[in-house]
């Protein structure tokens, strides 16, 4: 289903933060997929519109889990939908995380804010097959403690190394404060044998990728998930261009070696 949304039913919803909701969708018949970690769906709110949202967990029967932050007309509507409501879904679209290329490597998963959502199915995959990889590091940044996603799951990602940092502490926060790159000093990885997966605000991804390359990671082993306006998801609307890339098709997951020159040009 690439052009016409397939009706799904919202089975359950969970409020993550003040403005962010995670919900599970089940197809009314058939189903899409399979979705690979890092791929996205176009979610349609009836009569309002459609937005690209990465899948943040998949399950049997074509069930999809998405985490949506209410920032626009469509995302606000999706966040307000009650259990049982209908959502149109198209997909799967785009490149996923290339986890196969990371086998045998130490893994750095670096997330900022809602950027943790597309990384969660990647973490699921790694935890399902831990022997295939070296040390898993999960580095999570958020604006405030109240903005942290998946709070019940975070403890399970603490070993071998997992840490959370916030920009602005509040409510008796005793954890780390500062940018997510500061956590790299404690992470357990051998740079020349490490693959990094980064998703967050673009400025955070640029800073993290630059820092990792500085620490000796090959730029081709730094994977980023980029965001641009997407209307069609099928390479026809032109909105998601980043220089030579159509991010709906060539992304959202891209390699830093190819995108570094593009990310340093303002307003490209």
């Amino acid at each position: 289903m690439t052009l016409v949304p397939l009706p799904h039913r919202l089975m359950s919803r969970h409020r993550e933060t003040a403005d962010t909701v995670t919900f599970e969708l089940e197809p009314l018949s058939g189903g899409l997929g399979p979705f690979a970690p890092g791929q996205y769906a176009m979610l349609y709110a009836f009569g309002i519109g459609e937005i690209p949202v990465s899948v943040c967990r998949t399950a049997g029967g074509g069930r999809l889990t998405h985490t949506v932050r209410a920032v626009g007309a469509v995302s606000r509507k999706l966040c307000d939908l009650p259990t049982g409501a209908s959502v149109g879904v198209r997909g799967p679209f785009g490149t996923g995380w290339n986890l196969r290329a990371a086998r045998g490597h130490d893994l750095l998963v670096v997330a900022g804010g809602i950027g943790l959502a597309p990384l969660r199915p990647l973490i699921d995959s790694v935890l399902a097959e831990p022997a295939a990889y070296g040390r898993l590091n999960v580095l999570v940044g958020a604006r405030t403690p109240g903005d942290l996603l998946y709070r019940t799951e975070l403890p399970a990602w603490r070993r071998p190394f997992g840490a959370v940092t916030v920009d602005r502490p509040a409510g008796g926060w005793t954890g780390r404060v500062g940018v997510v790159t500061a956590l790299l000093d404690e992470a357990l990885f051998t740079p020349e044998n490490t693959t990094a997966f980064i998703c967050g605000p673009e400025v955070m991804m640029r800073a993290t990728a630059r820092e990792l390359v500085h620490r000796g990671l090959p730029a081709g082993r730094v994977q980023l998930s980029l965001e641009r306006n997407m209307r069609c998801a099928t390479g026809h609307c032109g909105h998601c261009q980043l220089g030579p890339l159509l991010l709906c098709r060539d992304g959202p997951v891209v390699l830093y070696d190819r995108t570094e020159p593009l990310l340093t040009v303002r307003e490209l």
Partner: protein
Amino acid sequence: MTGPGDIRAASGAPTEAVLGRDGLDALVQVLKRQGRTVVGPTVRDRAVVLAELDSADELPHGWGVELEAGRYRVRRRTDGAVFAHSAGPQSWKSFLHPPRVRQWTAERDADGGLTVREDEPPGVSYAFLGVRACDLHAIRILDRVMIGGKYPDPAYGSRRKGVFLVAAECTEPGATCFCVSMGTGPAVDTGYDLALTEVVDDGGHRFLCRSGSEEGAAVLAELPRHQADEVTRTAAAEAVRRAAGNMGRSMPPTDLRALMRDNLEADRWDDVTARCLNCGNCTMVCPTCFCTTTEDVSDLTGDHAERWRRWDSCYDLDFTLLHGGPVRASERSRYRQWLTHKIGTWHDQFGSTGCVGCGRCIVWCPTGIDLTEEAHALHQEATRQRPTP
């Protein structure tokens, strides 16, 4: 209808002949009899526009055009030529990739369930009459974008499928034309069903007609025609050769893709931004600009919704809108996006340039911005900055 001495295709149909005015009349009628909607140039509102034709009478007999940056005028010709005008304000994009298309409708039932119905593609069968070499290339470029990738677009595909293409080689380019430097004209090479080359000389007003497909040859066989003669062939070739030497514009002799890639911070972008209104006219008239947006609408009951796709422009501030604001907020970045995409990154995305040298964007720019002039200026700026070896 067989002319003695016809050169024949494998099917036995002729591959080359000379048509007179009666042949042109018959061509429109034969195509209509086949159930096709014939679209071609005609004079309307003091411009040569593309419209549905009932007969060859509606073609722009004796009309030419005068083109300059930001200027378009039709003018009377004394020779009665039909195809001696260059690109008008429209292109075949308007028919293959219409400005507005409904993609699907959705109904919400009483218990909140959702039913989505894809719109059926239209059953239209087009014949395009008078397609220039540049525009033939533009159609091929659109084909690669719309149906050449992983997700072929059904709305485009259904309109494109079975289009009968009657090309008209260009014998009188406009002052804003530069197909020679884009390698797209003025002669037509492949990808047509019939190709016409207009000849007006002492031997009369006639058209050398070649078939480029079995279907074209079959149509040619139904037309009143004369055997192709050497005088007409020579005159036709000469007219196209002369046209190649009459290009009003040219691109700089450099790798345009590299020029765009390597000069994203050139001063020239500020210069052109001072003249650019960001109106998007160039994207509307461009025969390959394909960008669209989606519109979701619902009726007053709130239970019926529709998805429409309409042309969009990279000059629109909303084009790159994310929740934090537009990615390309400055006018400078939006002109740069248009030009660097058109003649640069299009190669990366779709395997060719996006420019065919038709000059429409120059003519229909309200402030007369000329992309060839901008490319020359960027080239000069880059050359100045590069130390000579």
